[in-house]
């Protein structure tokens, strides 16, 4: 029998959820506010959404963010798959411990430090900052998350499956393509969505590594908020929250499905 939820526990639970989600709820709510003043409720309206789509700067930044997220997530998955495969399959190669530590380190490294380090590197190398420097920065972190997700799948993968494929006439490359990859596909997709979301959300790394013409959405929002909060920001934030929530849900469903098998 399931233990029942006592009134006290329920209160704590609700307080916890309120702490987490009331601010976000208010933000979403005020995006439908017809008043120009962000703190005063003036009735329901979708005018800020309409105005938002007339705000070219915001739209360009959104597009930039999506492009960066797409490219960096693809790069993360590619590199993450390679790193995870090396960790899971190549046995105890020399430097494996160091390699795994190096792969996981950016996960716990403060973003400010990663961002600053990348900035110094780009400046030292004389690389002009812009779209690709942000992509590189996001891939650095995204790759590590991708490695963790894909490694988890590969670690529980029965090597006998690949051997069986080879035994039945598949070359190692064919065995990987016909057996390993399809079985790991859900984990790879989940890793992609995770990296995509991280890139879309990121503010710190982008501020260090972006240049003129590659302003991402979070950066645009931040700079506009400093000039005064426009309800348009609420609207774009609401859209972003929805997008991220959907991607995370999809990632969760995919990993759940792959774990079941």
């Amino acid at each position: 029998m399931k233990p029942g939820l006592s009134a006290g526990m329920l209160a704590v639970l609700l307080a916890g959820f309120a702490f987490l989600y009331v601010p976000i709820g208010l933000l979403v709510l005020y995006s439908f506010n017809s008043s120009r003043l962000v703190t005063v409720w003036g009735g329901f309206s979708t005018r800020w959404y309409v105005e938002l789509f007339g705000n070219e700067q915001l739209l360009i930044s959104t597009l930039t963010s999506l492009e960066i997220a797409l490219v960096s997530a693809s790069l993360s998955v590619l590199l993450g798959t390679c790193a995870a495969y090396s960790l899971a399959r190549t046995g105890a190669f020399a430097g494996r411990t160091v390699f795994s530590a190096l792969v996981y380190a950016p996960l716990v490294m403060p973003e400010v430090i990663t961002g600053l380090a990348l900035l110094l590197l780009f400046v030292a190398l004389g690389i002009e900052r812009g779209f690709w420097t942000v992509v590189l920065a996001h891939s650095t972190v995204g790759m590590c998350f991708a490695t963790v997700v894909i490694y988890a799948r590969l670690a529980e993968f029965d090597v006998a499956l690949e051997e069986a494929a080879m035994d039945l006439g598949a070359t190692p490359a064919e065995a990987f393509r016909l057996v390993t990859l399809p079985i790991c596909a859900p984990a790879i997709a989940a890793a992609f969505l995770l990296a995509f979301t991280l890139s879309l959300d990121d503010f710190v790394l982008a501020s260090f590594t972006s240049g003129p013409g590659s302003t991402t959405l979070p950066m645009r929002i931040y700079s506009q908020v400093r000039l005064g909060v426009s309800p348009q920001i609420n609207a774009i934030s609401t859209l972003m929250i929805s997008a991220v929530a959907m991607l995370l849900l999809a990632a969760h469903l995919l990993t759940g499905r792959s774990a079941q098998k």
Partner: protein
Amino acid sequence: MPAPLVQLAGVSKHYGDVRAVDSVTLELEPGEFFALLGPSGCGKTSLMRLVAGFETPDAGRILLDGQDMQGVPPYRRPVNMMFQSYALFPHMSVERNIAFGLAQQGMSKGDIATRVAEMLRLVKLEGYGARRPEQLSGGQKQRVALARALAPRPKLLLLDEPLAALDRKLREETQFELMQVQRDLGITFMLVTHDQDEAMGMAQRIALMRAGQIEQIGDARAIYERPRTLFAAEFIGEINLFEGEAVQIDGARFAIVQGGRRIALAEDDSPVTGSVLIAVRPERMVMSHLHAGSAAEFEGTITEMAWLGDLTIWRVRLDDGRLLRVSRSNADVANAVFTRGDRVFVGFDAHSVRVLPK
């Protein structure tokens, strides 16, 4: 006599300091059902993986149908394997699992469909083609694995503990099915197992392995009745051991069993002399309430008995402290008279013994 299908000549494989396979020389006839039997860690799995091509020997040669397999990768060997975990591809239907090897051979779609249907019929899984492996029972998975490995018509099928994951009832049934399939297709089977019942029940010849080497090779009966070493005698079946001395008197060989009784040894018995072990299977022991007049006889008390349906096992504690095991078929109702606490005479006759080096 046909040329051997598989020839292993001085094959060795080391892992660090461990000699997993130690200069094994072995030949398999075409169409033979062969078993590698041994405890875990004896090298039987390594030997099988060497034949499949997943490992490379450090020394020696492996010939398959006369062809040297040196440098030939597993995907180019006419050998298929049935994995212990079955290793069915979870993202493919039963049909696509069975078709995998055929598609790799470049067979046409129509031929693949025909062969898959044929294999499904062979393993009695008609109508299961569209299912996923996760929707099958253990026994059904085992049969899909068999069908998948047999579909490309390999010259040699390797079976890695094929019955280990099945329950007892299913095991015997599957055992007979495997033998039937092997006879019908005429493909050489090499079974790898630690289970003596599996090896004895199915294989025409058994190679008993120990520490990377082949201890004894022969049919089940030869290894059971005529073990050459203590290891072979103890690994297969149960055995009672008596200390003794093998001597030669006037050209005839005798064994003097500890306690002074002298028994004549058969001509073909292992030609060891000096300090020996005299081995007697439990079902060959003579047991009676009175002096039976066996060649060697000891007095003791029945301390335990186990009635197992087809046979009964008694443990007899001799007066000098040794513990013996005696078994009898329950078909002979006369054996029902022996019970716990009885004082009995147990012994054996000269033709029942096997003399082993100590």
